[in-house]
């Protein structure tokens, strides 16, 4: 059997990526990395915590999910009528795991032996669901502990409080794992319904990286999928509530046991949902440059704040762009959140006046390029990020080219458009009584 593929060359990274289209409509990517001991594979579906209301064409019926189903399903796929899937990987010397984000669920293994067999196990267990009343009930206890662990996690709490402040309706404001109450509503039937929709190969992709021969991987995947006789999948229509441009609330404060207050300012991006493909990625790169130019360690503001003991080395600014939501967050631990807030807002206004110098822009561009190249040491980074970018219609390998295309003027215009003070919120964790 031969499978058709095309290759994607990247001159900067000096890498060749092999792309296969496997029946019934699944993308498979293989990146050979000679000399690596480890081989890493991920099998990922476009099903995340925000996909909580959907229908499949031509059906009219809409399914509305309690919060936390995608993550719950991820846990439950690791168990089937033959027992625990971790054991199967362990017998083959592999290390397996999975994670759920806002937009996708990813199953993975890494191994240094028995790659073909491990890949079979990955493909098999993800394609063979097994949910019963009893196993669902037990998982409610385990995930309950996971939720409780995150309740004590200041970074996690400050992040979700910020999203809650920014969004009035969009499900990105909800914790990925849901709540103890919402996961109590999950049943085997509900899991099967989600499974049949989102775990169809046409909604999934595989990325494999390591010292591998691409064609043999292509054949293995094709041979695994072919006998399963998938029916074609109708278009999945994901339903999202209309999100107003306005934020939800100005300020969210929570008490937790922390040594210093943890503080972030968040800005809601109201344009991002209209952008696709390269335009979306262009915005992401411009925002990364812009934020680094204003808040980065090589600039005056960071060094002033550090000298005034207002921030520590973890202070930073970050932008996230998905296909239908986007936000910026700026902050970190601080002794005085009011003062830090004021300094951040003043800095943004000042940047509009000061502008960006050519030297600054070029220096930060070099930094982003070098950091990008360095991260390609990590097989996990490559695979995980490639599919995340792919699922939002962008291409991780496009970054060096886009980085050359963007200019200072574009970055400056985003300062006005995307960091507008009438769409910001703050999130603060204060240290309560430690006992």
């Amino acid at each position, binding site marked *: 059997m031969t499978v058709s593929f095309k290759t994607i060359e990247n001159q900067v990274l000096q890498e060749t990526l092999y792309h296969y289209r496997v029946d019934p409509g699944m993308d498979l990517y293989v990146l050979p990395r000679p000399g690596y001991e480890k081989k890493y594979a991920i099998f990922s579906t476009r099903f995340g915590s925000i996909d909580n209301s959907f229908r499949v064409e031509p059906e009219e019926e809409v399914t509305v999910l309690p919060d936390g189903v995608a993550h719950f399903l991820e846990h439950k796929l690791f168990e089937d009528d033959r027992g625990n899937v971790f054991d199967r990987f362990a017998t*083959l010397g592999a290390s397996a795991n999975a994670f759920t984000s806002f937009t996708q669920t990813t199953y993975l293994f890494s191994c240094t032996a028995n790659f073909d067999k491990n890949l079979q196990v990955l493909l098999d267990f993800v394609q063979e669901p097994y949910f019963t009343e009893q196993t669902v009930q037990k998982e409610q206890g385990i995930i309950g502990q996971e939720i409780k662990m995150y309740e004590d996690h200041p970074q996690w709490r400050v992040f979700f409080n910020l999203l809650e402040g920014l969004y009035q309706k969009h499900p990105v404001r909800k914790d990925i794992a849901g709540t103890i109450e919402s996961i109590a509503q999950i049943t085997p039937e509900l899991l099967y319904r989600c499974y049949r929709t989102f775990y169809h190969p046409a909604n999934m992709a595989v990325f494999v990286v390591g010292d591998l021969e691409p064609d043999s991987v292509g054949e293995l995947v094709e041979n695994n999928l072919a006998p399963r006789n998938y029916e074609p999948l109708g278009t999945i229509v994901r339903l999202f509530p209309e999100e107003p441009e306005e934020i939800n609330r100005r300020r969210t404060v929570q008490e937790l046991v922390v040594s210093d207050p943890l503080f972030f300012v968040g800005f809601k991006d109201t344009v991002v949902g209209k952008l696709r493909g390269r335009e979306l990625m262009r915005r992401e790169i411009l925002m990364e440059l812009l934020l680094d130019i204003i808040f980065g360690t*090589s600039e005056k503001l960071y060094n002033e704040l550090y000298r005034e003991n207002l921030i520590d080395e973890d202070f930073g600014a970050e932008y996230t762009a998905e296909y239908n939501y986007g936000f910026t967050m700026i902050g970190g631990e601080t002794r005085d959140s009011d003062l830090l807030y004021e300094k951040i807002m003043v800095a943004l206004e000042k940047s509009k006046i000061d502008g960006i110098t050519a030297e600054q822009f070029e220096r930060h561009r070099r930094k982003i390029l070098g950091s990008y190249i360095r991260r390609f040491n990590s097989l996990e980074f490559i695979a995980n990020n490639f599919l995340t970018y792919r699922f939002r219609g962008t291409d991780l390998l496009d970054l060096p080219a886009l980085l050359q295309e963007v200019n200072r003027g574009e970055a400056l215009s985003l300062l006005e458009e995307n960091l507008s003070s009438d769409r910001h919120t703050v999130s603060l964790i204060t240290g309560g009584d430690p006992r």
Partner: protein
Amino acid sequence: MSVDFFNHQLSNGIKLYFMPSGKFKTINIALFLHQDLHRDLAALGALVPSVLEKGCRLYPDYLTLQRRLENLFGAELSTDILKSGERQILSFMLETAHGRYLDDNGTIFRDAMFVLGSVVGDPLVDGNAFRKDYVEQEKNQLVKDIRGLLNEKAAYALERCLSLMCADERFGVYKLGRVEDYRDIETVELYRFYQKIITENPLDLYVIGDLDEKLVVETAETIFSGERSQKTIELTPTQVDQPVDEVKFIREELAVNQAKLIIGFRTYTGFQDPLQCALLVYSGILGGFPHSKLFMKVREEAGLAYYVHTRLERYKGLMVISAGINAKDYTQAREIIEKQLADTAAGEISDVELNNTKQGLINQLLSRLDSPQHLISNHLEGLVGGRQWPVEELIAGIKKVDREDIMAVAKRVKQDTVYLLQSREGGDGKNDR
């Protein structure tokens, strides 16, 4: 698979370890300065990298230094303090993209080495002291870091347990020292301390990348040419034989949603011990993997925890079990854990458990060869532990481990401290053993 560092000694006695490797996109340079972990020295040691990193003679402030690194295509300089057994290591690492992916005139390696050499060896000095404002600022930051341990509850509980367990040993010292240790440190004293350790203490320099050996040695020789004393000081070996009289039970209160259970053990098996491989397998069978006894019984069967695992401190020969549980489940969780310890000690280990654990360990060891940082830390571990364990030898050793070896290790293992961190209303965790 075989990977080796070429060893060189620079003319001033600094050890240089170089691994030519074309497999990575980067050039990695690391420098480690070792000293004994000691209550009176920990804060001084922790301050040195922080202060040095804030500016040196040629790049006199953080902004200037960061701009220099950005122009080297975002080369990343990171400093850290490591605690390896009863040794404190001052770590300086620099990673750059390799010149083959950049338009860099072929000088990025030398330029990066030069920056690192400046930061470590050519500090910004005011008379015979570091600059007072830098020192005060970094004292503040380190005190903040120590207090910040509280923010990560699992790490906090682990650190509390180990410090209580080893309260009378050097190992009980936190790697950054105590808050009160910083109060009286003077800039003159800190500079004198720096001058002493930089000239007398063991100093190891690592380079990994697709580079010419001659170039690496010559560059290192030129840049790290500072004068050193004739004889490098000998550090004190880590003590692994502290006896346990009785199991300590400690319960502390903190407003947490999830209780943290930490159990500390002494294995009396140090880094050079012939049973080292058996210890790795023993700990792995108990709690190193998702197939391990603790994960299967505490999480998968009883549904009491999201995480439960073992970890080893191989220099000091300690093993720690950690779990996040509901405080009310403490007694049940503890019973299940004790049962797994007893079963393992009695050799009740299936062939599948033994085989899966060995394969899992081998997979981890081989995977580490794909990261320059791990290649460096593997070799550094050998320097600290007084014995290199080449990957091939470790793997062969692990393959040979049988039930008798594991039972022999288990026989040595003594429970020392049970630590439970829970909220006041958390209920029934109190002194029931």
